[in-house]
């Protein structure tokens, strides 16, 4: 059985005429140790899937099973511990007036794990920060260092799944490379499963073994990266993302405006 199994996940916001369907009966499953990529443009619902899975949004329908446990709108401490999330903006996701030490102690206290000291030193070490960072404030860190702290905070509870929501989009390319390498190394050194959300197809193909392409709340194509790179994308929308990621192309811009992805056959 898969580690993560999502069936017919449906998330909608607003009432009556303002009702917007963000995730439309989406099903996917992720094996233990796999890196699954969710790619799509803004508003396609990729982050909403992560937030429902992480328990940050309890207003969803469908069925989600993680490590054999069926998730409800309310989570137990153990269920929260199972999956931890890393957000896009390391400037917004760390409390500006808490030291790294406080930031990392909080999840340990909430979970009542004790042994905070050892865990903090260990978590910092895992993300390549030495002990001198422990009593600094976020404003004393660079963007890349902050994202390392955010990853340390996610790892400190020893989760089985990391939910990564555009973890490098706010970083410079050279820093992005460091953080992506760190995530690959962590994955190698311990059994972790990632769901990696990004709008950047090159980042997704670098990190992931299997990807799902989302558009307007639906999964329009699901494929392994080997097949995608070998045989090319099947769905016209994926093909379009693929071509657009190569950079500017005047002819492609022409066809973009005329493309109607809806009328194409679904996989």
């Amino acid at each position, binding site marked *: 059985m898969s580690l993560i199994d999502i069936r017919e996940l449906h998330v909608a916001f607003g009432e009556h005429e303002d009702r917007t369907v963000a995730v439309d009966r989406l099903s996917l499953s992720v094996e233990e140790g796999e890196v699954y990529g969710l790619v799509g443009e803004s508003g396609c619902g990729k982050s909403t899937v992560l937030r429902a899975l992480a328990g940050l949004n309890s207003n969803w329908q469908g069925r989600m099973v993680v490590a054999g446990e069926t998730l409800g709108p309310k989570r137990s401490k153990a269920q929260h511990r199972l999956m931890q999330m890393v957000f896009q903006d390391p400037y917004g996701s760390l409390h500006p007036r808490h030291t790294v030490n406080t930031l990392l102690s909080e999840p340990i206290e909430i979970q009542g794990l004790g042994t905070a000291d050892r865990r903090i030193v260990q978590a910092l070490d895992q993300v390549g920060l030495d002990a001198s960072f422990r009593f600094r404030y976020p404003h004393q860190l660079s963007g890349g260092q902050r994202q390392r702290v955010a990853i340390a905070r996610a790892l400190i509870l020893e989760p089985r799944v990391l939910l990564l929501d555009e973890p490098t989009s706010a970083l410079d*390319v050279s820093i992005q490379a460091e953080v992506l390498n760190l995530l690959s190394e962590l994955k190698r050194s311990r059994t972790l499963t990632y769901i990696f959300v990004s709008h950047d197809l*090159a980042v997704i193909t670098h990190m992931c073994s299997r990807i799902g392409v989302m558009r307007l709340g639906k999964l329009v194509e699901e494929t392994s990266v080997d097949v995608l790179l070998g045989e090319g994308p099947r769905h016209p929308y994926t093909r379009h993302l693929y071509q657009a990621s190569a950079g500017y*192309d005047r002819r492609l811009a022409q066809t973009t405006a005329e493309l109607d992805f809806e009328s194409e056959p679904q996989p």
Partner: protein
Amino acid sequence: MSSAGDSTGQRAEIAAPILAVQDLSVRFDTPHGLVEAVRGVSFDIGREKVGIVGESGSGKSMTGRAVLRLTPKAAQVSAQRLDLHGQDLRRLSPREMRAIRGRRISMVLQDPKYSLNPVMRVGAQIAEAYLVHHKATQREARERALEMLEAVKIRNPRRVYELFPHEVSGGMGQRVMIAMMLIPEPELLIADEPTSALDVTVRMQVLAILDDLVSSRGLGLMFISHDLNLVATFCDRVLIMYAGRIVESCRASDLKHARHGYTRGLLESLPRIDERKERLQVLERDAAWRDGPTILHQSSGGSRP
């Protein structure tokens, strides 16, 4: 894949550049000492698309702002030369500079959400940009604004004219910004990360509009971006900035053959869709880059070290 048109026609223009910058510096006197954001940057822009790339803090945005004299009050700006079509911008009074800003040089910023007036209809904002610089009636300005909305490929200009900024999408907002910046018919457009907040699909369309306008109206474009891939495929020439200096200058199509350690390092740290590797190359910063020589490719044209 390459961008539109070879730039041989634009080469000729470089003899009389639209913008000539020589030894531009921007310094800040802070409690922690002097911070040099831009350190002696020189370049020319003709009727072409010139990309300025670098990471955050490289001084690329500050360079664009210094041209328009939009640097913060605390900044000390100096230059040997800062000419727009031969006119010395350094000597202009604040009042004369206002006549240049928007009229002859205009600027498109990253996020239309923050650069449009939230309580004014977008059409009225475009018309206002025209009225500020031209003697015209409200009706004429409106007509010009509608034409401009059409020029940036907005399908129903009359409907969009009446919308407020919060009612338009990111891509449409950026087209409105471009319309507003181009309506006074400037000679130079400075675009600071104009498409970074946009999705790839929309980005492509906005770039195509800029591309067409640059070639049809013969204006110069200073395209500030952190995205090497985009600059390499969209621009004619590229200047790479590091620590406030231009470290390398080349034709956009030659960017993949860049020789400077910094440029090479940036290119190699990018994940590539057509090439899978275990680890990404990590940029090893070399202290010598700060003050080392600028690498100038033979074919790079109007830029001087």
